[in-house]
Structures are given as C-alpha cells and as structure tokens.
C-alpha cells in the first residue's frame, strides 16, 4: 500500500509497497484452493497457512494487510490466534475476518469481543466474502494513513520527533551492519525567539515552514528531514560521507540566508548546523551520534552562528578535528 507523501516534492517518502497481502488461515486445502481462484481478480498477494502456529509465524514475518481466519483448527485454534494478534502492538490493527462453520451466536460474540472485524459463516457466498474483504482492506488503508499522519509534524509536514527516533535507530543499525557511510545533521534557527517576540508567532511559524521547504528542496530523495522540536530540525543522510553531508548542509545554510521570509523584511534569518558522519566502521551508539551533532551545533552557535560545523566520527576513538565550517 502506498502511504501518502506529506509533501508534493517527493520527500519524505516511504519505500513503495505495491500490493496488499492477504493471509488465508484454514485447515482445509479445499478452502484455500477455492479462495485462490475466487480472489484472483483482486490485485492481491495471497499467503496460505493451514495451522494456527504456522499462521502466527507467517504474520510475524510478513504483517499482512488482512487475514481470513478459520476458527476450528487443530493445535492453536482461530480464537487463540486472534487473541495473540490483538496482544501484539504490531499486529493488533490488522483486520481479521473470521470464516467459520460455527453458526452459534456465542462464537460470533466471542470473536468480536476479542477484536475480529467481521464474521462470515461457511459455506460462504464468495461474492459476499470478496466485498467484505475489500471493505476490510479499505479500513486497513485508512488506518495506515492515520498512523502515517501521526508520524508527521502538523506545521511543517516533515517527519516528527517520534518518527526521527525510529528511523534514526534503523538507519544507524543498517549502516553499522553493512559498513555503509552515514551522516546526521541537527539544525537550529538562529535567534528564533526574537523573531517570535518582535514579529509575532504567525511570522515565526511561517519561518519554520519556510525552513522546512528549503530542507526538502536542498536534501536528496534518500535523506530524511525531520522536525526535532521547536526550532530544531534533523536531517538523516544515509549512504553519505561527511564531506558530502557538509555540502548539502552548506546549501541549506546559504539557502536560508538568501531567503526573505514573510514578515521578516529587514531582518536576517539564519540557521546553524551541526553535522557528524562516519565512513568506516563506527561503533558509537545512535544516541551518541545525536549528542555529537548537538555539540557541533553549539560550536557553530559559539563561533558566531550562520555556519556549519562537521566532524568525522572515528571508531571508539576521540573525535577527529573538525572540518572546515
């Protein structure tokens, strides 16, 4: 499923997930065969499990977009599977449609109470099952969109702090595992408080939005620009040597300097940026990277603001001399 990009300019963007995935869990091979044929016209990838434990293992690995779940199976039964899914943060929002020969009201009540989103009794009318599945997939899409929105900063449309923490940990782990270069920048608007105090908060908000636009414009597609909080921003630059990160950040800095923001006529709006990067193996934990980038940001502030300070991080050793600011 495609999550909507927050900005029209292409970043931030998630990797495309082209087709929705539906898992069918039933102990009868006949049911799988039937559904495979009957659902083939929907643009879906189907996964198949014949036992409850097999289903749980597949779900943990693939996180399907919807699940068709039989109740009466050997081993872990359908309600057991459903209960486990609802206990897990990562799987609790996957819509589950129960497909069951059990017609008693108390079976349906039990399933809905645990969190099933729908219940279709066997023998099923396949047309009905198909439209119910489509309804569940639409719901899933909307929930994903909501979850996506929850990761965005409302004012600037950049990724928010929570998303930054998550993505930064992932990118850091990826870089360490594959020994890829990685860079991180922390940006802070200079004298932002005085803009708010003298020109008013709406003007201040406009400056934050303007900086977000410059960040998007000057960063690359694979970079991840985030609003870190207040007037602080962060830019994750995967597969980027610190020298290249410095160039990107210098473009951002000069872009801000050259911009006349609405309501800020006759005023110099500038940004200070701290950058760290590593090209070889670097075992500094992710939080230490942020601290080191922050230290460079404050070095930039102390050196007179409106500048970029960048450092190449070394494996475990003390920080290398700073690059040209």
């Amino acid at each position, binding site marked *: 499923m495609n999550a909507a990009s927050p900005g029209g300019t292409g970043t931030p963007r998630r990797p495309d997930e082209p087709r929705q995935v539906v898992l069918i869990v039933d102990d009868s091979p006949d049911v799988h065969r039937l559904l495979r044929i009957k659902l083939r016209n929907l643009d879906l990838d189907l996964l198949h499990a014949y036992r409850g434990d097999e289903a749980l293992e597949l779900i943990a690995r693939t996180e399907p977009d919807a699940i068709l779940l039989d109740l009466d199976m050997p081993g872990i039964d359908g309600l057991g599977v459903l209960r486990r899914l609802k206990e897990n943060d990562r799987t609790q929002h996957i819509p589950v449609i129960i497909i069951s020969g059990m017609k008693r009201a108390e079976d349906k009540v039990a399933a809905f109470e645990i969190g099933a989103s729908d219940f279709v009794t066997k*023998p099923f009318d396949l047309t009905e099952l198909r439209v119910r599945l489509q309804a569940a997939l639409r719901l899933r899409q909307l929930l994903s969109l909501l979850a996506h929105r929850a990761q965005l900063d409302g004012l600037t449309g950049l990724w928010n702090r929570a998303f930054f923490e998550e993505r930064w940990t992932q990118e850091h782990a990826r870089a360490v595992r594959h020994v890829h270069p990685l860079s991180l920048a922390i940006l802070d608007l200079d004298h932002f408080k005085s803009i708010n105090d003298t020109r008013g908060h709406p003007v201040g908000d406009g400056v934050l939005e303007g900086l977000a636009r410059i960040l998007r414009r000057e960063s690359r597609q694979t970079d991840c620009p985030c609003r870190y909080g207040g007037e602080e921003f962060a830019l994750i630059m995967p597969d980027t040597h610190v020298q290249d990160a410095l160039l990107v950040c210098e473009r951002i800095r000069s872009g801000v300097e050259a911009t006349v923001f609405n309501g800020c006529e006759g005023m110099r709006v500038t940004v200070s940026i701290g950058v760290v990067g590593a090209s070889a193996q670097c075992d500094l934990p992710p939080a230490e990277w942020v601290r080191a980038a922050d230290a460079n940001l404050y070095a930039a502030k102390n050196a007179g603001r409106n500048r970029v300070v960048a450092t190449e991080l070394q494996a475990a050793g003390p920080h290398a001399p700073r690059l040209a600011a």
Partner: protein
Amino acid sequence: MTPFPTGSGGPLRSAFCADPDMRELIDLFVEAMPDRVRSLRESLEHARLDDLRRLAHQLRGAAGSYGFAPVGDAAGRVEDQLRNIAASDASAVEQVKAAVDELVNLCRRVSP
C-alpha cells in the same frame, strides 16, 4: 483407478456447476472424493475418531462452498456427534456409524 460405486440415489451435482470460475475447482473437488471416502471408512474401521472428526470438519467447511450443501450438512452431523462422544466410550464407533454411512453415501454421489 477402479470406478467407485455411486451410492444409492442419483448423481449429486454442484449448485455452482453453471459458474465457469467454479468448473475447474469442482472437478478437483470431485476427483479427490474417492480418497476422502477411503479415509473416512478407514478412520471409522480403526476407530481413529480424531482423524474422523478432522475429515468431517474439513468437509463441513468446504463442501457447501463448492456447491455440495448436503455433503456439508452430513459432515456437520458427524462432527457434532463426535464432539459429544467421549473418546473412551466403547460404543463410540457404533453411535457414529450411521451418520458416517450417510456421509459416505453422499460423497459417492458427488459428480462433476
């Protein structure tokens, strides 16, 4: 493979036999019937009631969806009876035999 005898009563056809999507599926379902009948009979003969219950359960779920509602209903009766019989009950096989015979008879009548 030796042709299996059709049970008493004429051939039983799928309610969906006019649906071109279902043709191939129904054929596969029907082809698998002699094996199923054999498994049902063997499970009953050897008093493997868990196997019998699982076979009946799967047929109950699937047969109706393939357009063979009477088979699904008969399988449901076998499953329900087995659910209410303790495995240790010495007369379990006797109690369920009539329902299994009825199911087997219907399975034999299933036709493409």
